[in-house]
């Protein structure tokens, strides 16, 4: 079956090659449709299909509809490597949209680099990924935390406690929290790094009380860590200590959490469904028509939507789906009127300049926006990573440990 598919695609390529210049463009989607990460993966994949559908309805790219090749990474890192190689070697796609975790991105990045096809990573992340072929449409940790820490220090006070998952997203974010705390004249009075399997948060709750912070920066990842927020509220800590987060809501945690526990928690991201723009209203209407409106749309879905549109616009601008001209078009100040406000791709860092929203949880499993910071630059990525001046750069920058 596989070989016949391969032959079919070969012969199709031969036919198309002999025909007019409008070759079909093929894009690959590799997301976690099953397994523990499918909270994010299903919506990312839905967003990609919705974006392709709307682009195709408007004439596709280069005058032909886009074709999608989809794989389920099953929340397993090894599947990302396997399918990234498959889409490059067998499906010969023009562009790759894939990944949620930082580890999945790091697995895919070298494959996209070697194959020399654009790769779009669409999730909030710890920041600093730097590669000619890689483009990031989610917010970076410094982009979010620069806004959040400043806001929280003014609102709650100068003593900060950090609760974070025990891997690079958590540890790098903690370094950024220290960095921005110093800038705001605040101080980190305690840190607790937790494995994703921990379900017992009583020790953390006690350490927080012993440290007496004014607010906690909690970065819970996965369903278990959502339990921390519930226990934080039940122990009565919410009354005296603020809780802010760069990823609360990113996996619809506000739905899982009880209204009592969720009320007053602060989330901070590049997108909330409550964002009030005409582009967002149109996007949500289109989304609800296809997928219903049972589950709120998460930021990673909007990141994918933006990525597909930025790529399609770049292909149409370049007049070809070939990698060199497409990357040049993406680096020429590509912008898009996104659901989360206007976004602009930074030529040097390949990260996105975009709005950052601070939102407060209400008692109806939802959010209301309390602050909009417009056009927040990925400052750290822009500072470290200039792919226009250094196209051969391939690195992952992270702030030094203090």
């Amino acid at each position, binding site marked *: 079956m596989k070989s016949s598919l391969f032959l079919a695609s070969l012969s199709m390529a031969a036919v198309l090659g002999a025909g007019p210049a409008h070759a079909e463009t093929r894009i690959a989607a590799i997301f976690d449709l099953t397994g523990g990460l*499918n909270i994010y993966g299903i919506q990312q994949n839905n967003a990609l299909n919705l974006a392709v559908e709307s682009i195709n309805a408007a004439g596709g790219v280069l005058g032909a509809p886009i074709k999608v090749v989809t794989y389920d990474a099953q929340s397993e890192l090894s599947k990302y490597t396997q399918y990234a190689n498959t889409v490059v070697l067998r499906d010969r796609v023009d562009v790759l949209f894939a990944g949620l975790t930082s580890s999945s991105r790091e697995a895919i990045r070298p494959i996209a680099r070697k194959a020399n096809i654009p790769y779009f990573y669409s999730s909030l992340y710890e920041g600093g990924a730097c590669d000619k072929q890689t483009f990031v449409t989610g917010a970076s940790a410094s982009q979010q935390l620069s806004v959040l820490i400043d806001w929280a220090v003014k609102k709650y006070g100068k003593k900060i406690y950090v609760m974070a998952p025990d891997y690079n997203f958590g540890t790098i974010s903690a370094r950024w929290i220290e960095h921005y705390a110093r800038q705001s004249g605040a101080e980190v009075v305690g840190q607790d790094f937790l494995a994703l399997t921990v*379900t017992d948060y*009583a020790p953390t709750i*006690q350490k927080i009380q*012993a440290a007496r912070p004014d607010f906690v920066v909690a970065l819970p990842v996965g369903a278990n860590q959502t339990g921390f927020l519930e226990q934080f509220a039940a122990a009565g800590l919410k009354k005296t200590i603020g809780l802010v987060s760069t990823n609360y809501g990113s996996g619809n945690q506000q739905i*899982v*959490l009880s209204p009592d526990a969720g009320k007053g928690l602060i989330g901070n991201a590049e997108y909330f469904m409550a964002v009030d723009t005409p582009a967002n209203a149109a996007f949500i209407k289109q989304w609800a028509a296809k997928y219903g409106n049972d589950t709120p749309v998460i930021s990673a879905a909007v990141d994918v939507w933006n990525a597909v549109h930025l790529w399609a616009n770049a292909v149409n601008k370049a007049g070809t789906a070939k990698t060199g001209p497409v990357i040049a078009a993406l680096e020429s100040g590509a912008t898009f009127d996104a659901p989360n406000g206007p976004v602009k791709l930074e030529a040097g860092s390949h990260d996105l300049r975009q709005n950052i929203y601070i939102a407060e949880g209400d008692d109806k499993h939802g959010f209301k926006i309390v602050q909009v910071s417009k056009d927040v630059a990925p400052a750290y990525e822009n500072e470290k990573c200039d792919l226009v001046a250094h196209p051969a750069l391939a690195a992952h920058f992270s702030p030094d440990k203090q």
Partner: protein
Amino acid sequence: MEPDYLATVLLSSVSSASILLIATIGLAVVFGLMGVINLAHGEFLMIGAYAALTATQRGLPFALAIPVAVVITMLIGACVEVLIIRRLYGRLFDTMLATWGLSMIFYQLAVLIFGTVTPGIGMPQFGITIGRYSLAGYPLLMIAVAALMLAFVYGLLTRTVYGMKARAAIQQPEIAQAIGIESARVNTMTFAIGCGLAGFAGAVLLPIVPATPAMGFAFVVKAFLAVVVAGPVALTGSALTAIGLGGGASLTASFLTSVAGDAVFFVATAALLWLFPLGISASWRRRM
């Protein structure tokens, strides 16, 4: 070290250990009485949690949703025993493989039926204060729940006719059959009870651990290790190992980090298995 801090740490460590014990008892019963390791135990927990959640969403009070969860998981457990476990008696690794496969099926079914996120029911918002520290009240309540659950299961297996039959059917199957005990039916009942206990655990822990398709994974590894370290006297042994290992891990996590807590759990498990290869209860005279 301030006394109020020490008191809250001790109290919450006992409560953490009790939570592990609640999650472990069903596994211990099935292993102790049937010699079957049910790797789908975590998924029965998950089914119990979703059953209780669905029942509360239909307007049932939480206290009544728990028995509903128990009945549902017992029925599913009985079906699983008749369709799968019964055919694999005495083949420990085959049952492990079969129940592991079953766990994946249950997991994916939960994703298909309930989606990936469902609203939680929240933790009852009461707590206690010791000095300048406060603790959530519901997890502390689990100490009493674990004690009652243990007493109930112990009584069920040692003081009732079913309990005698169940032990006879496993320890002396031929003689049990000779005196008219229908061992197949008794085993179905035992497996169903084990699953029902998992369902109870999932339901009663729902305010602490929200219902998600993957919630079983969080418990099954530690519950499984507690049962293995316990050895042949599964019930009393597991109670001891769950309290010791779980409490020790939580205590360590309070004073150091959660990673150190997990390290203590796993290192202690390895050390105990090295000292007692057949489990700590291998030389005990007790039966349960």
